[in-house]
C-alpha cells in the first residue's frame, strides 16, 4: 500500500514540478530537466506499482532489480553488444549508407533513372523488409554477416530516397550562379549540391539508425551464434530470466539513443547553416 501511495505522490509531485519548471521560460536547463524528471517519475511509478501489487519478477521485474542484473552481468551484455551492435548493425549501417550514397550520386546524373527509381524506392522504404531476415540467414550463415546483410537492405532505401531528394534541393538560381563561375559537374556537386543535400541525407541516416538495430536484432531470432542481444532476448524469454531480458532492452535502448544522438550531433556540426539548427 505504501508503495502505491508513493507512486501516486511521485506522479503528482513530478508533474507539479514540471509544470512549475515549464513556467520558468526557455532556459536550456529547463529543457533538459523537465524530460529527465518525467522519465524518473515514470521509473518511480513502475517501481511503486510492481512492489505495491506484488507483481512476480517473472512477469515484470522492478527497475531496481533490472539495474542490479545490469550491473551484475555487464560482461554478458558487453559481448552481446559487440556481436549485435558493433559487428552486425554498425557494419551493415556503414555498408548500406555508403552503397546508397554512391547509388544516389550515380542515379542523379540521369533524370530518367531518378524519375523511375524514386517511386520504387519510396515504396520499398515503406515495406516490412525485416521479413527478409530468414532468407539472409539462409544465404550468409549464422554469424554477423547475415545480420549486416539484413541491415544493408533495410537502411539502403531510406538513405537513397533522401539523398536523391536532397541533391535536387539546390535552386536553379544557385546552379546558374555556379555555372557563371564556370564550375564543372563535380565542383557543383561538392561545393553546392552535396552541402545543400546534407539536411536530407542526415534525415535518412537518422531513420536508418533505428532500422539498423531492428534489423540486427530480428535477424538473430532466426539463428545466431550463442551470443547477441536478439539471441539473449529470445532465450531469456524462454528460460524466464526476464530481468536479463530487460537489461538487454535497456542496452538496446541506450545503443539506439546513442547512435541517434551521434548522428544528430554530426548533423549539427555539418548543417550549422540550416534554419532548423539556428537558435
Amino acid at each position, binding site marked *: 500500500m505504501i508503495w502505491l501511495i508513493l507512486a501516486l505522490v511521485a506522479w503528482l509531485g513530478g*508533474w507539479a514540478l*514540471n*509544470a512549475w*519548471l*515549464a*513556467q520558468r521560460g526557455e532556459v536550456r536547463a*529547463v*529543457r533538459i530537466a*523537465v*524530460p529527465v*524528471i*518525467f*522519465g524518473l517519475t515514470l521509473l518511480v511509478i513502475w517501481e511503486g506499482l510492481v512492489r505495491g501489487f506484488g507483481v512476480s519478477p517473472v*512477469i*515484470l521485474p522492478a527497475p531496481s532489480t533490472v539495474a542490479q542484473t545490469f550491473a551484475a552481468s555487464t560482461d554478458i551484455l558487453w559481448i552481446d553488444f559487440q556481436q549485435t551492435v558493433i559487428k552486425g548493425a554498425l557494419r551493415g549501417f556503414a555498408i548500406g549508407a555508403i552503397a546508397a550514397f554512391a547509388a544516389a550520386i550515380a542515379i542523379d546524373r540521369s533524370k*530518367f*533513372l531518378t*524519375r*523511375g*527509381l*524514386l*517511386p*520504387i524506392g519510396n*515504396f520499398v522504404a*515503406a*515495406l*516490412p523488409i*525485416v*521479413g*527478409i*531476415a*530468414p*532468407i539472409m*540467414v*539462409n*544465404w550468409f550463415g549464422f554469424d554477423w554477416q547475415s545480420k549486416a546483410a539484413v541491415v544493408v537492405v533495410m537502411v539502403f532505401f531510406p538513405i537513397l530516397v533522401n539523398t536523391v531528394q536532397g541533391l535536387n534541393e539546390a535552386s536553379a538560381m544557385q546552379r546558374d550562379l555556379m555555372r557563371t563561375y564556370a564550375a564543372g559537374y563535380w565542383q557543383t556537386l561538392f561545393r553546392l549540391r552535396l552541402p545543400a543535400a546534407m539536411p536530407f541525407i542526415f534525415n535518412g541516416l537518422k531513420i536508418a*539508425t*533505428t532500422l539498423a*538495430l*531492428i534489423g540486427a*536484432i*530480428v535477424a538473430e*531470432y*532466426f539463428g545466431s551464434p550463442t551470443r547477441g*542481444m*536478439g539471441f539473449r*532476448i*529470445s532465450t531469456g*524469454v524462454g528460460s524466464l530470466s*526476464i530481468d536479463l*531480458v*530487460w537489461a*538487454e*532492452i535497456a542496452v*538496446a*535502448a541506450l545503443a*539506439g*539513443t546513442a*547512435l*541517434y544522438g551521434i548522428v544528430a550531433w554530426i548533423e549539427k556540426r555539418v548543417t550549422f547553416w540550416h534554419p532548423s539548427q539556428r537558435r
Partner: protein
Amino acid sequence: MKSLLPVLTVLAVIVGIWYLAVAPMNVRVALDQAERGGAVVMPEGSVPRRDVSVWRLMLDNAEHVSVGYALERPRLPTPAQVGQELWKTTGEMVAKGRPWSKRGLLYHGWITLQSTLWGFALGTALGIVGAVAIVYSRTAQLSLMPWAIISQTIPIVALAPMIIVLSSQVGIEGRGVPKAIISAYLCFFPVLVGMVKGLRAPQPAQLDLLRTYNATGLQSFLRLRLPASVPYLFTSLKVGIAAALVGTIVGELPTGAISGLGARILIGDQFGTPLAIWSALFAAAVLAGALVTLLDVIQRLTLQRMGMAT
C-alpha cells in the same frame, strides 16, 4: 503519369537482374539435384564442389544451369516461381471455393490486416491525443516530446517478446492484442509529429480573428486548428499505416505465432520452404501498397470536399 515509363523500365531492369542472379545463386543446389538424377557433373560430389567458385561451376556445367530455374526449394526463386506460388495460395484457393483456407495467404493476410488496423487505430488515437496535449500544454510539450523521440530510437523488436509475455500473463488470450500494441508503438510517432505541425499550422492572425469572434477554446480548436491539420494528418497517416504493418509483421516474426504473414515467413523458415517466405513477403508488399493507396484516395477525396486540394 509522366513517370510511368521510367518506373516500368527500372522495374524491368530489376526483374532482369533478378533472373540473372538466380543462376549463380542456385547452381550448387541445381547440380546436386542433376547429379542425383543421374547426370554427369564436372567435379563429382557436392563436397568437392564446395571449393569451386559458382562461376567455374556454371561454365563447366552449362547444360545443367537451367535446372536452377525450376527447383522446388531454391535459394533464390525466380519471379515467375514467386508469382505462381502467390497465385496458388490466393487465386487458386478462391477458384476451388476455399478462399479462407488456412493454407492460403488470404487468411493470413486477413489476420495481419486486422492487427495492423487495430494497431493503426490505437496508434493514431494516441498520436492525436498526444499532439493535442503537446500543443495546448507547455509542460506536456517539454516532458513528452523528447521521450516520444527517444521511444522511436528504442528497437521495438527487443520489446516485442516481452509485450507478448506480459499480455499473456495479464490474461489476454491470443496474439491479436500484443501485435496491435507493437504496431501502435511504431505508428503513433509519425502521427504525433504530423499532428503537432498541423495543429500549429494556423497563423496567429487567424487565431486572433477567432478570438475577435469571441470563440471559445473548444470552438477555435474544432473550427480552425482541426481542419487546418487535416492535410498534415493524412500525410502522416500514410507513413503510420506502413509503420503499423511493419510492426504487426515484426510482432508475428519472433514469437511462434501460427497465423499471419509474419508467421508464414517464420514457418517457411522452419520447414525450409523458401517459396512460402517469398510469397508471404510479396503479399505483405501488396498489402502495404494497397493500404497506402487507399489512404491516398481518401486523402484526395477529403481534401477536395474541404476545398483544400492542391
